């Protein structure tokens, strides 16, 4: 299997070096380039056409969300995995809604990061426990939606809730599958569906909730 081509975007050179060192050990992945600013990132991603971009949320000039906006306006096959120290609900929700396929914190271990990159490159979603908790919280707080909202994307199915709960409890996809007696593929489908809802839902609650809750 071809290694996954990864592009790093982070304004801290030190952190890029660290991630590069961690990923260089994995043969499933090749790091093909890196960038330290929004403009560099946009140019680099257009030039290298990577499979996965590891995207820092906090950068000058608009951060990860701005990179996502500029790249996704041009039709691109690249997927994005957000990587941040923040854990701030507003940042997390913002970058997911801008189109990232997943969100992990920078304290993630090298092996888990490799797994997450592979998962995202296959089009699946990656939820850190914290993100799972945020989404659960956002979808269960209050019932109100802005008028005209699509009820299908404004609520989670019971099964999706179960999956999210287990994710928040620190279960890996495989563990969730065996806990719920479903296949890993089905777990992936549920998580992708939750991701889509988080991105599409025009729940008034979702953004307001995230803005209100500036908690770690």
């Amino acid at each position, binding site marked *: 299997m071809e290694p996954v081509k990864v592009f790093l975007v982070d304004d801290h050179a030190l952190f890029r070096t660290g991630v590069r060192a961690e990923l260089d050990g994995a043969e499933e992945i090749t790091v093909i380039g890196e960038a330290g600013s929004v403009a560099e990132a946009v140019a680099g991603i257009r030039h290298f056409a990577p499979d996965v971009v590891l995207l820092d949320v906090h950068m000058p000039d608009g951060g990860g969300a701005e990179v996502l906006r500029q790249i996704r306006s041009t039709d691109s096959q690249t997927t994005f995995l957000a990587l941040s120290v923040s*854990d*701030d609900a507003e940042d997390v929700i913002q970058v997911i809604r801008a189109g990232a396929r997943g969100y992990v914190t920078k*304290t993630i271990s090298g092996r888990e990061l490799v797994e997450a990159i592979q998962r995202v490159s296959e089009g699946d979603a990656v939820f850190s*426990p*914290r993100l*799972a*908790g945020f989404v*659960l*919280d956002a979808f*269960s*707080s209050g019932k109100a939606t802005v008028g005209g909202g699509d009820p299908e994307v404004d609520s989670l199915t019971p099964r999706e809730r179960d999956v999210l*709960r287990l994710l*928040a*409890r*620190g*279960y890996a996809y495989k563990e969730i599958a065996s806990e719920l007696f479903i296949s890993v593929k089905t777990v992936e489908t549920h998580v992708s569906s939750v991701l889509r809802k988080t991105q599409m839902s025009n729940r008034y609650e979702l953004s307001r909730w995230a*803005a*209100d809750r*500036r*908690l*770690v």
Partner: protein
Amino acid sequence: MLRFPPPPSNARQPVQSTVTYTRLQRRRSNRILGGVAGAIADQLNLDVVWVRCAFTVLAALPGIGVITYGLLWLLVPQAPAGVGGRDTGKQRQQSLILLVIGIGIGSLAVMFAGGTASWIMLPIAILVVGAAVVWREADSTQRRRWRDGAKAGLVGPAGWHTYVRIGVGAALVIIGLVLLLLGSAGANPLQTGLLAALATLVGAGVLTVPWWVRLVGDLDNERAERIRVQERADIAAHLHDSVLQTLALIQKNPDQPREVSRLARSQERQLRAWLYGQKEGMENSTLSTLLAVSAGEVEDTFAIRVQQVVVGDCPVDDKLMPLAAAAREAMVNAAKHAGVQEISVYAEVEPDQVSIFVRDRGAGFDPDAVPEDRHGVADSIKGRMTRHGGKVRIKTAPGEGTEVALHMPRTKEATS
């Protein structure tokens, strides 16, 4: 142990941004004169027409309505850009009619007050109109200053029409005063001289009042800026006392990875609490803060990471206290026996119960093989939970990791 001093209250400004202060502000659009009626309407949540009606009626008391309006105009600040809705054309028409009626009522009232009062009506009206023109212009100048961000002079960057309007206003004020003087001029030259001096003072006062008010406002702004600078210095001091000290400690102990990671985690937690933490006085009062404190203690004591996710939150009552204590005990057990670097804690507050899951991927154990006299699981967790009506489920096997699930029903009062 490094501790952050409590942050300055203003550092929490973003958190509180959802709280809207209802401060009296004059409207800057959709106003007839100074936006005073609009300000009162916005404050009291009334239709602006009623407030305008009230002022019209007040005009019947000679002077009161006009003076009240003038004082409010001076003392209430303009709203910043983009605040307030638009008047409809009809509202505007109504208001102009009200204004004319008000002037009419005012004049009539003065006339019927009779005698000596009526002859000064015209000069005073002229004076009031002149003052209104100048003050309105001062409002627009202030807006231009805001827009340009410039500390412009008396009139700011203005076109010729500003000067014309101010000139006309000033002229009206002067004419009004002169007419007053002429009307009251007596035979006594000393009296006339005094009156003239007084009139000059009044004229200058009326015309320059908006700029005096602005001067005071500028002083306020300057003070706010000084406070901001002070705040930045405070933040720098905090960072120095905490983060930089910890970094220094870390550099001194590079060969003790356990100590380094303990220091780093403890510092990270404090920094996060300081940056995004809840308001002061909230400590220990909700489930999430209580769990965060316990997790922090476990992290510090055992040099492991405790990943916590809390969905929903609620105040801690006397049933949730034992739940949190049991959760803490489960964390300690995992930290001691599982032999892992990370524990996951997940808490969910549901309408009828609160659940906490403490999970590790470590050694696990055979639940049947644990001797009865071991306090940890038997007493601290199961005993605590069952005494308060809760349930405990432990899922484990040797080599499979451990998950302790704690469920506590919520008390009726807490949920209702």
